[in-house]
């Protein structure tokens, strides 16, 4: 079970980073769209 605990922790960190990155990218794109 310890193996899966560490896998889950690493996966959670990577998953959180990806979602936050997407939110960041989204705001960048929206700014560009506004500028035209």
């Amino acid at each position, binding site marked *: 079970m310890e193996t899966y605990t560490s896998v889950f922790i690493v996966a959670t960190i990577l998953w959180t980073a990806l979602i936050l990155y*997407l939110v960041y990218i989204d705001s960048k794109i929206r700014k560009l769209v506004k500028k035209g």
Partner: protein
Amino acid sequence: MEFTRKHTVALLSVVYITVLYGAYNALMVFGPMQTDILPMRELYRNVFFHVPINATTYVSFTITLIFSLLYLKTKNLRYDNIAASSAKLGILFCTFTLITGVVWAKPAWGAYWNWDPRETTGLILWFIFAAYFALRSAISDEEARARLSAVLGIFGSVGIPLTYFSTTLWFSLHPRLKDWSLAPEMRTVLMLMIFGTLALYAYLLWIEVKIKEVGG
């Protein structure tokens, strides 16, 4: 209706929570499978990741097929943009399908790659859409590029049913989902993971199309 930043945050929050909840159940809650095949006791957990990613691969390439047909019918370059963006995501999800597949195959079948019909047809599908992008990068004229890649996108989509039915068309060791008897709570988690992955795909497709529209 405009897809605002609030919608993005709401959608990504749903995706985040759904997939995290699925992964938590798959890795931490569900016990080992009751089977005499020793490696399979823990390996079945892979199904909660591999199947949703694979389903998303099929959806991505199907969207490419639909928008390729629409492009040929209307000659609207916006449809070409959607078809190409979906193909890009399809190849990404297809890569992850192959990776989760080979990681599972090593302990289950004894080797990372066995040229099983499912593996082989999956790889062919990957190569078809790799060729799709090679073709796109080789043509500078927008309309010729859109027309030729739409034709390849349509013919390449044959790879989707070929991959899906490969386990019934030929002798294959690959498990078939319909032969499985997942417990109801596992089935729910699998469905949630499929929903989460598809929602992520929908968002990524939207942002990819937007990026292309602003000239990225």
